[in-house]
């Protein structure tokens, strides 16, 4: 990935959204992106989604801020756009990496917090879990897939060598306990016990 900030000192970069190798799904107020190359998935909040959509390779940061102002109906500081671009960059969703060209503006903690809030806080671009489609449709919670599929033969609690399968206790609230025996114990805690076999884990 090239570095946009080194390209033209003193001028603003015109970032361009990456399009290849991505699967994009728009929801009501956010955009979900799956990176087919890196097998990572991201959730862009409304602000980040708007910034990303307007990254056409010809709009400067100032112009992006103006567009967002029009669409959101509230003034957006350029610094907030930089923050969004930084997040998008780190998620590899821009064709070229973007860095803030100036290091003069050393924001205080308070101003940084204010800017974060203006663009939706830390959740500008967040990671989300996307299991294989088979997992999404299965009755087994994603948390179990994520937390328990790798447990085989790793710890005594997950020593599932007896019947070549592991069990996951899925508790209210979404926490999981992986073990080789979670039947009644799990149910008594209000949880549900799921069993994995070789065909279950991705």
């Amino acid at each position: 990935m090239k570095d946009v900030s080194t390209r033209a000192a003193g001028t603003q970069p015109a970032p361009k959204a990456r399009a290849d190798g991505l699967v994009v799904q728009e929801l009501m107020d956010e955009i979900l992106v799956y990176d087919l190359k890196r097998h990572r998935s991201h959730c862009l909040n409304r602000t980040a989604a708007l910034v990303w959509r307007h990254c056409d390779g010809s709009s400067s940061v100032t112009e992006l801020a103006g567009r967002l102002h029009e669409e959101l109906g509230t003034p957006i500081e350029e610094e907030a756009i930089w923050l969004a671009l930084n997040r998008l960059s780190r998620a590899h969703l821009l064709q070229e990496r973007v860095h803030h060209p100036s290091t003069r503006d050393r924001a205080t903690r308070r101003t940084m917090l204010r800017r974060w809030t203006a663009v939706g806080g830390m959740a500008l671009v967040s990671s989300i879990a996307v299991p294989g489609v088979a997992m999404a449709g299965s009755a087994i919670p994603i948390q179990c897939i994520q937390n328990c599929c790798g447990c085989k033969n790793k710890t005594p609690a997950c020593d599932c060598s007896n019947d070549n399968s592991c069990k996951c206790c899925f508790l209210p609230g979404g926490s999981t306990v992986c073990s080789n025996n979670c039947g009644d114990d799990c149910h008594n805690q209000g949880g549900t016990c799921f069993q994995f076999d070789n065909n279950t884990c991705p």
Partner: protein
Amino acid sequence: MAPLARRSETAAGRVVARLLTGAWREPLPPIDLTSDDLAAVLPLLLTGGAAALGWRRIRETALAPARAAGELREFHRSHALAGALYERSAARLVAHLRSIGAEPLLAKGWAVGRLYPEPGLRPYGDIDLCVRPEHCAAAKAAIKALALPHCVVDLHCGVQRGWQGASFSLLDDRSMDDLYAHSQQVALGEVGARVLGPEDHLRLLCLHALSHGAWRPLWLCDIAAALEARPAGFSWDRCLGDDPRRADWVACALGLAHQLLGARVDGTPVAERARRLPHWLVPTVLRQWGQGYRYRAPMSSYWRRPIEAMREIRQHWPNGIEATVDVRGPFNAWPRAPFQLAACVTRAADFVTSPRQR
């Protein structure tokens, strides 16, 4: 099981039903639940495939900031993105099968998910599709060669005589020619896909849900969504079919969607039946929903472990709905125990005579 536990399962099932009432509809009906209710049924929603629908129901209510709501939202996102990946794979698969002359018919999963008002409201599992028996071998080879990422293909070769909940075989009273003749071409990526006609699809959704004991709330949501999305000119005669017993099963499944989730049956031939279901039917579903998912390992895996097998048998005891459909019984007011026993005997006989299939 103690009556108290049974009552609490039914109560939890009732909360699930209240939460999912009208979840497929625009605009959404009002909801009256507490964050404690939501937290209590969270695992049931997740395992029942209804997390995203649950999120849709509460996202614009005072429950949206609740912790449990955050879990539901995550599932919605996950389903939405997994769905987009699924569609890519499904489009490739359909195009590939079409190129070798094996036009597939799609059902359930994505084929019903497209009837919901937003993406991601329904998780997709495998790609359920059916080809003509004469295309089966070529289709199998093509699927294997394609090695699709992100999905599992459940290929059905015709609508062979069979039962036990194997989806397309639930339509074994119809010929493939007939199913193709009534099928619809719908958008899927750039290729488009052929899905079952609305009458056949609704019938299949109803029979499939019942054949699995209606344990997944999502299945009744699917039925409700398909019922309310039916086009003008929908043929109830075709949907219900000629066999009076199966027609009654379909009507009862629609009745469950009506009574539990508020699906609209006014002006349909099943309206009367939907309002007067056998007394055991709704409680059976509510209890099942309140129990949530319980893994049922194949009995064949217990051949050498008789003690564990005895324990597992409890999990395999079919509920009244599943048992009735298993033995092709009527949905009447009689107690279900004889049907459940008969279903177990039938299954045990199958197990003993062909252990590899269980």
